[in-house]
Structure formats: C-alpha cells, structure tokens
C-alpha cells in the first residue's frame, strides 16, 4: 500500500524538476567543496615549513586561469557547423565578439555582460528573427 502511494508521490515529484533533491548533487557539492578548500589552505597552511613555492608548481599554475576560462567560454560562443557562414552567423558568437571587445577596452564585468546580452537580444529578436 505504502509502495503505491510512494510511487505516486515520486511520479508527481519527478514531474517537477528542481523539487527533487538528489544525492548526486550533494556529493558533487561536498567533494568539490573539500577539494577547493584544500587548494585554498595548501600554502597558507604549509608556510613556515617551506619557504618558497617550488618553481615546478608555480609555472603550470600561471596558465590555469586563461586555459580554463577560455575552455569554458569558447564552446558557449561557437558551435562548429558544416559551412563557414552557418558557423559564423550565430548570434552567440556575434554577441561574444562584441562583449570581448568591451572586456578588452574596459575590463569591466558589468559593461561586458550588458553589451553581450543587448547584442544577443538584438540579433535573436530583430536581425535574425
């Protein structure tokens, strides 16, 4: 009996995404949290025992921010399609190039987001509509 009501309850809940708290999500949150905290603590904790950060660690770390950020950004702006025009005539790419120019000139997050979103909407709702 309870089995039936459980099943019914489950089906209602699963029809509403976002209302079911999944253990998967919490496992990810906790493990990422532990890893991130250990990165933050690493040398702050170790300092006093070692005087200098080894060059072997420092050199590759310098390239983490540009490499990771670009790997995050580019796939959201560019989708490779058959044909150059089909690839380039994409509102996300156009908005990204405009926002990139603003970021370069101003180094201002707010201005970058504003210009990027306005250009995206302009092309999505007006030019390509």
């Amino acid at each position, binding site marked *: 009996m309870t089995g039936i009501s459980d099943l019914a309850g489950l089906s209602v809940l699963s029809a509403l995404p*976002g209302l079911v*708290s999944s253990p*998967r*999500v*919490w*496992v*990810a*949150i906790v*493990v*990422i*949290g532990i890893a*991130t*905290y250990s*990165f*933050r*603590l*690493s*040398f*702050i*904790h*170790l*300092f*006093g025992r070692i005087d200098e*950060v080894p060059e072997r*660690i420092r*050199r*590759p*770390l*310098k*390239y*983490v*921010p*540009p*490499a*990771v*950020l*670009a*790997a*995050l*950004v*580019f*796939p*959201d*702006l*560019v989708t490779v399609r058959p044909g150059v025009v089909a690839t380039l005539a994409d509102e*996300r790419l156009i*908005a*990204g190039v405009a*926002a*990139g120019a603003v*970021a370069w000139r101003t*180094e*201002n*997050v707010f201005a*970058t*987001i504003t210009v*990027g*979103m306005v250009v*995206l909407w302009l092309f*999505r709702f007006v030019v390509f509509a």
Partner: protein
Amino acid sequence: MTRMNGSVLHEDLVAGVRDVIPLMLGIVPFALVAGIAAVDAGLTLAEAVGLSVIVFAGASQLAAIDLLGSNAPLAVVIGTAAVINLRMVMYSASIAPHFADYARRTRAALAYLLTDQAYALSVAEYERNDGRSRWHYYLGAAASLWVVWQIGTVVGVVVGAGVPDAWGLTFAVPLVFLALLVPAMKDRPTTAAGLAGGAVAVAAAGLPLNLGLLVGAVSGIVVGLLTEARE
C-alpha cells in the same frame, strides 16, 4: 582614531570593506547568474545555497551546475570544478607569507574566504601600505564578498525562476568568464594558453562524458608552458 564615534570596527577592516565596494559591480551580476543557472539546471534553492556556501567559487560553481544539468558523470563534474579551482593554490602560495604569523586556526578560517578578488585586492594593498593589519584588511574585503555572493545567489534563484527561457539569461555565464578571461591573457604565453584551451574545447565539444572542458583546459596549460619555454 579607529574607536572614534564609538565604532568598534578596526580601521583596517573598514578599509577592506570600502576598497571592495567597486568590485561588487562585477560580483553582483556574477552571483545572480550563479543562482539563475542553478534553477535552470534543476537545482533546488537548498542545493544552490549549499553550492555557494560550501564551494564559494563562482567559475567552478557555474561549470558544475552546467555539467550536473546535462547529466555528466560525477567524476567529470568534480574533476572539471577541481581543475578550475587549481588557481587557488597559486593565490594561497602568494598570500601565505602575509598570514604566516597567525595561529593555525586563524589561517584555516582566512583560507576559506580566499577568492580571486580578495586575493588580488589584499596583496596589492599590502604592497602599497605595509602598515595595514593583514587579517583585518583581508577579512573586510573577503567577508563582504562572501555576504554579497550568498545574497546574490538566493536572489538569482528566486528571480531566475520567473524569467522566460527565450531571453537566454544563462548566456551571461560565458560573458562573465569572458570578462575574466581577457585580462588573464596578458602576455604571449598566457594568450597562447587561452587560445589553445578555447580552440581545443570547441573541437572536443562532442566528446563523451562532457570531457571537452577538461581536455581543453589541460591542452591550454601545456601550450602555455611550451610557449614560455620557447621564449
């Protein structure tokens, strides 16, 4: 002087809060986007807040949300977020000498609040003004960022649920990263790292298990090192 007007706040703590205010213009939209993206991917309010409190690192939160939303394997979600946050090791190393005299427990607490902005602001200020109390100034900036980040995430979750998908609000996510990427490409090796990381990630977008980001990031780091070695 600091205790004037009956204020119990340390002068250097107040200075940290004051100096971080202009940076909030970038943090507020970033936090809102983190909340909006979380709802969009099907996370609950509790999960979104848990992510912001426990992880407290925007770029990795957004990547994790994106991967969780597209049902990537847990190992890929965790591995990707960890690689993104590896840069914290660099900040930790750089700021460590300033905290070396504090008790272990104090250092452990200060480490939790370490972010790109708190790091950059504090280290610059320590250079300029050697008289500053290290932990007061850092705490003023870092704790302010923490509070604004948490509030912003919650507001993002609430607001994000009400905005139509067609507006593509989650497009603000790559825009935030773009605003951070451009200043990070400051010389030839870092620019090469960025261009290679991005290009490989696009080419690898179709890889199974959403491994494209991880492969792209690692390729970018390798190309950066190779470019540096050639110079």
